[in-house]
């Protein structure tokens, strides 16, 4: 337990660039040595609203990628959807502004020791951490297929260099403005079959992760997913961001998505338990 977030640091990080990309903002921070420690799947917690803000809680963002440029030059990049007051405030900050940032936080994606055939599935800006993951997997000799989905073309986040990091990319939109019309789950069974996928990595809304998990189980494929739940602290003390997860001992526990996740084994999650504590959970009243 003393290994919790052992590389996490709190720093004032300068915004190096902030650019609009489709419906999102791509923001780059100077973070120094934090860049050396971040792994795909880790997240960053950023204080929003400035001093005396009425927004008392940090906002958590998946790390898109980090660039290690020696002791002082490390960069950390995130992709932000400005849908609430906090994320909108952040997307309005100009380069040169410094934010209070804590990173890297949480459990990263597990990387296989053998070269495997991996399928990466992202919903909306949930694609962000998958590009860094793809680079790591390719470095291990893995084949990487990617599927990105969103409601509409503007909400697909797929930068050019990200596209180059995968063997195949399938884009799916619900309104058909780009790529295949439909949902990511429509195309998964075909890709799993033709590419003989060993493992699925996913990041996106919980409903999508649950649907992906069902397909993974039906096809006997391992599934690692980055979950999300309303989070207050991001560092494991508040106990708000829990979800029911079955441990290796068979016991279901309410585990923290910030520390025991965000990346969890999809097969261990008790899905569809929103607004309930599943029967049999350890300590259930």
């Amino acid at each position, binding site marked *: 337990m003393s290994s919790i977030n052992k590389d996490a640091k*709190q720093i004032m990080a300068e915004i190096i660039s902030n650019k609009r990309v489709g419906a999102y903002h791509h923001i780059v921070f100077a973070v120094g040595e934090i860049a050396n420690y971040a792994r795909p799947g880790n997240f960053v917690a950023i204080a929003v609203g400035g001093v005396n803000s009425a927004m008392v809680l940090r906002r958590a963002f998946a790390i898109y990628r980090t660039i290690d440029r020696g002791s002082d030059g490390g960069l950390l990049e995130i992709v932000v959807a400005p849908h609430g007051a906090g994320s909108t405030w952040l997307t309005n900050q100009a380069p040169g502004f410094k934010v209070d940032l804590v990173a890297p936080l949480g459990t990263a994606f597990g990387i296989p020791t053998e070269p495997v055939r991996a399928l990466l599935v992202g919903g909306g800006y949930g694609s962000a951490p998958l590009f860094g993951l793809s680079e790591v997997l390719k470095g291990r000799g893995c084949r990487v297929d990617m599927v990105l989905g969103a409601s509409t073309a503007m909400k697909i986040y797929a930068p050019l260099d990200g596209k180059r990091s995968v063997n195949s990319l399938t884009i799916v939109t619900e309104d058909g403005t780009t790529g295949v019309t439909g949902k990511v789950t429509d195309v998964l069974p075909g890709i799993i079959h033709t590419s003989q996928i060993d493992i699925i990595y996913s990041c996106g809304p919980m409903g999508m992760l649950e649907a992906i998990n069902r397909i993974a189980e039906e096809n006997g494929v391992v599934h690692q997913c980055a979950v999300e739940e309303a989070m207050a602290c991001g560092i494991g003390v508040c106990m708000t*961001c829990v979800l029911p997860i079955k441990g290796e001992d068979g016991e279901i*526990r*309410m585990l923290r998505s910030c520390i025991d996740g965000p990346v969890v084994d999809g097969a261990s999650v008790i899905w569809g338990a*929103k607004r309930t504590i599943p029967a049999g959970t350890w300590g259930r009243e």
Partner: protein
Amino acid sequence: MMFDFKTNLGQAQFENPIFTASGCAGSGKELSQFFELSELGAIVTKSIMLKARSGRATPRMAETPSGMLNSIGLQGPGIDQFLELDIPWLRQQSATIVVSIAGESVEDYAVLARKLRSVSGISALEVNISCPNVENRGQVFACQPATARAAIEAVRRNIGGELPIIAKLTPDVTSIADIAEEVVAAGADAIALINTVLGMVIDTNSMRPKLAGKTGGLSGPAIRPIAVRAIYQVHERLPHVKILGMGGVSSGRDAFELILAGASAVSVGTATFGNPTAAIKIKEELREELISHGFDSLREAVGYAHREEARS
């Protein structure tokens, strides 16, 4: 002359007056990544119950203007695992430890006290009789003088003579000073003020309560004036009873305000969620605040806002 930052709650002595707040620091492990736990006056551990508890369903949290609602429901491993793992670890960190306990019945409080009486390395016991996140409002012992008294008496009878008892109260009552008087008569050495305030948020998209548990406890700067009022009222009624103040403290200035109202020590809760090093920052700011107002010691400032009433 050296500034004297020391304080006490009952018999328990503390190097400085800034503590964590129960439920806002776990048992310290997660925060130890960001600062030395021994730097704080005390680590107040998350209220522990007799048995393991899953807590309430999610969503458990809603941010509100200058605050947040939580509906955790005392998730935890139970007292036996806590004593086996968390207390030895905290002792290794040389942390000053205040253990917080919560029960569902008077008997629970008695059993918890018996389990703690022989544990070494604990400075004080916070008896949480005011957690709002329970199914039955009747289980909030601190809402009624008789139940508040019964819970504290059960702890007093079973804890032995040494360990100071701090009774944690809710401001959701008609007269908090009456409840405070009752728990002091029952054997509490100090009072912790305030627990979160019962609140609710309705999601206007789903048009249902946002939290799965429907209601939650409001914390953060939004409730600070309620904390100041409660501390002021209890200090006025019971000037010789020490108060551990808390409620929306996020700066040294805020901690100073609670001390002026009558708090001898101040816990930092929700501010830690927004900033893992908040308690350390607040401790340093409070020292500067006290010195800049001409105080040579923390003790001189406790209850200082009451002095005009004392003269008139």
